[in-house]
């Protein structure tokens, strides 16, 4: 228990200390302080992990501090420490620590390092609060906290207009999602009179039976609540159609993209669904919705990765697609596989981002792939580590991505629910697309003839940057093999009963790797890599030819299916019209002139009058007192 508390407190203190006293502390001590804080957190998380997974400590669900009590509403700060949260904490602190170290190099020539390190430390604290929460209140606190840090970090280079716009977009999209999430939380409280997860789980079966009428249709309360909460998850985990903010978020520094927009924060939605699996499991409708939205995101966001030219955006779209895989897995009740993919994805996607960042720094903040190429020899370490990450991403057996992704696809294949066959085909095709865009990016950056402006000055980045790459490359390759048995096959698995587990593959890890040769996804993946080689290395003219012949599709893709256009048309323009109406009629006429100015004038008038009452003459004060006394006397007698 105390360990968990300290895991949270160290990043909090280091972050706030550097945030407040950053200037007098100077850059290097600030960086060391925050890194130390997260390092201690990581070590404590590892201890906690060992205790819970190997020593079988019983789950702890405890209220630490009762913040405020109002009638039935208990606002508590409480921790739920079980196998799921412990594993999650280990992953978060691990990636966060590496990103801290990596940022020493990446932010080397940035003037406001203290601010940056303070933000990422505080982000780590918020994320851990979200993970360890045992009630919706603390969860929501962490949820908004990571969101806040994310907006601040997207807009970190606030001198750039695009960064500010991206930050604003992320903020607005998440507001919509969080509003619905909050409604969901309020609903949970309204029906269970508690904000604790455990109470909600106990009440779930009866809520599934209760039905309410919404818009004239009867619906199960549980389904409605699950869907509302899922809206929150959709926003944070950037599922269609609330995904638009994630590609834009690449305006932030690259370590942030690795930490927040790949490894940790965006997976909070998946964590949420897994954490609440006892609720979702009882609502087949909600599960199907989760699965279909996840599958759609997995395929169609991947396709968009094919036409991107910015290296970070390619990785960003691949993140969207992989989040879709996880969501689909959760929707298929394969929570274990979903979280498994979350872990492996955290490693290899952080690796890919950091490697991309290394490329960007080596090229002096150049992100356009059309100005790269032939970097394999110049940046050998980055090259090899990027390749490791890419192989894991396309799920080549026996890398880590293979085990987790195939577990999800297997689970969906065996499932017989509404939308499961659609999901299966989306995910399977997605494998081909993933391989295609990943290796397109890989070839364009590292192999094809160089298009760099000044190739002579390109050299490998500093050690603080490539050491984290190597550290991340190892789990990217091996983690799947190691965790496959304890997480997926074993019963009980490492998750114990912290999530609902009802999926068991019956193969050993090695057998699964061999077996994959006879499965469709493996060959699709190879086809994808081959196509990428064909299009971008062997016949570089091919893509242009496709683009002109299939111009309609190309335009649609470059336009990102028109989501931005739609948003712009419906929400931005519509809202603007609506707000213009409100501004002109309601605001100016009714509120400003009537209510605000009116009441303002009234109050100012009253205030003048009250001032006159205070004349300064003693006898008048006595008179007022006596009059007051007499009024009270005659009123009461």
């Amino acid at each position: 228990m105390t360990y968990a508390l300290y895991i949270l407190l160290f990043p909090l203190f280091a972050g706030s200390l550097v945030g407040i006293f950053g200037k007098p502390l100077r850059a290097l001590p600030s960086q060391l302080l925050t890194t130390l804080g997260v390092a201690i957190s990581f070590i404590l998380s590892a201890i906690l992990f060992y205790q819970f997974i190997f020593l079988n400590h019983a789950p702890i669900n405890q209220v630490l501090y009762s913040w405020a009590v109002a009638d039935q509403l208990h606002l508590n700060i409480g921790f739920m420490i079980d196998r799921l949260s412990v594993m999650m904490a280990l992953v978060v602190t691990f990636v966060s620590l590496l990103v801290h170290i990596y940022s020493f190099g990446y932010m080397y020539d940035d003037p406001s390092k203290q601010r940056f390190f303070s933000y990422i430390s505080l982000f780590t604290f918020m994320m851990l609060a979200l993970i360890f929460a045992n009630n919706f209140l603390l969860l929501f606190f962490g949820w908004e906290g990571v969101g806040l840090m994310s907006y601040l970090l997207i807009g970190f280079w606030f001198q750039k207009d695009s960064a500010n716009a991206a930050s604003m977009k992320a903020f607005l999209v998440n507001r919509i999602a969080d509003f619905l999430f909050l409604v969901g939380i309020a609903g949970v409280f309204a029906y269970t009179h508690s904000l604790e997860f455990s109470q909600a789980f106990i009440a779930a079966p009866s809520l599934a039976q209760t039905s309410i009428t919404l818009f004239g249709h009867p619906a199960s309360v549980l389904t409605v609540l699950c869907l509302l909460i899922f809206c929150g998850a959709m926003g944070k985990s950037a599922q269609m159609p609330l995904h638009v903010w994630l590609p834009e978020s690449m305006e932030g520094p690259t370590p942030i993209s690795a930490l927040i927009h790949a490894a940790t924060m965006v997976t909070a939605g998946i964590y949420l669904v897994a954490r609440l699996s006892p609720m979702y499991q009882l609502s087949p409708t909600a599960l199907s919705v989760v699965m279909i939205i996840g599958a759609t995101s997995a395929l169609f966001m991947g396709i968009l990765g094919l036409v991107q030219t910015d290296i970070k955006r390619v990785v960003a779209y691949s993140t969207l697609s992989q989040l879709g895989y996880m969501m689909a897995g959760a929707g298929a009740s394969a929570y274990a596989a979903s979280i498994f993919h979350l872990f492996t994805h955290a490693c290899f996607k952080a690796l890919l981002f950091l490697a991309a960042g290394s490329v960007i720094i080596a090229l002096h903040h150049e992100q356009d792939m059309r100005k790269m190429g032939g970097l394999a020899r110049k940046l050998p370490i980055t090259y090899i580590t990027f390749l490791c990450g890419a192989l894991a991403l396309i799920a080549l057996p026996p890398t880590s991505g293979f085990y987790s992704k195939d577990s999800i696809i297997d689970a969906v294949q065996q499932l017989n629910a509404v939308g499961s066959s659609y999901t299966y085909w989306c995910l399977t095709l997605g494998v081909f697309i993933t391989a295609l865009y990943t290796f397109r990016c890989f070839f364009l950056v590292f192999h094809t003839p160089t298009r760099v402006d000044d190739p002579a000055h390109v050299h490998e980045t500093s050690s603080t940057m490539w050491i984290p790459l190597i550290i991340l490359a190892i789990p990217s390759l091996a983690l799947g093999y190691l965790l496959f048995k304890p997480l997926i096959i074993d019963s009980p698995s490492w998750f114990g009963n912290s999530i609902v587990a009802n999926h068991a593959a019956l193969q050993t890890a090695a057998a699964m790797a061999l077996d994959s040769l006879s499965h469709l996804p493996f060959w699709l993946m190879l086809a994808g890599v081959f196509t990428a080689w064909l299009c971008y290395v062997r016949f570089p003219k091919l893509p242009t030819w496709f683009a002109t012949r299939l111009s309609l599709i190309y335009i649609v893709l470059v336009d990102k299916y028109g989501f931005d256009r739609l948003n712009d048309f419906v929400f931005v323009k519509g809202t603007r019209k609506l707000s213009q109406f409100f501004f002109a009629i309601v605001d100016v006429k009714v509120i400003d002139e009537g209510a605000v100015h009116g009441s303002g004038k009234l109050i100012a008038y009253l205030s003048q009058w009250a001032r006159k009452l205070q004349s300064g003459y003693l006898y008048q004060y006595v008179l007022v007192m006596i009059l007051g006394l007499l009024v009270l006397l005659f009123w009461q007698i």
Partner: protein
Amino acid sequence: MISLSAFLWISSLLFAIGIAGMIINRHNLVVLLMCIELLLLSVNTNFVAFSHYLNNIDGKIFVFFILAVAAAETAVGLAILMVLYRQRGTIEIDKMDVLNG
């Protein structure tokens, strides 16, 4: 035998005179102090009368305390009055209106 209500009337009359003095008098602060003294005396009258008619000693004891406190109060009041006179050269209540609003 004078009735209790007679005492109560006389004391409330004293009290009213004291209050009226505080409100009507706009010139001399010393008169104001005297009015306050009058208020306390009317209270004392009340206490003594009640104490006598209720056959209860508490009221009379209270009167002694009130007398003592009134003396102390007047001392403090006169001291402040001295300071005021030294600073402003006047003890008119009407002139005490710098602090207002």
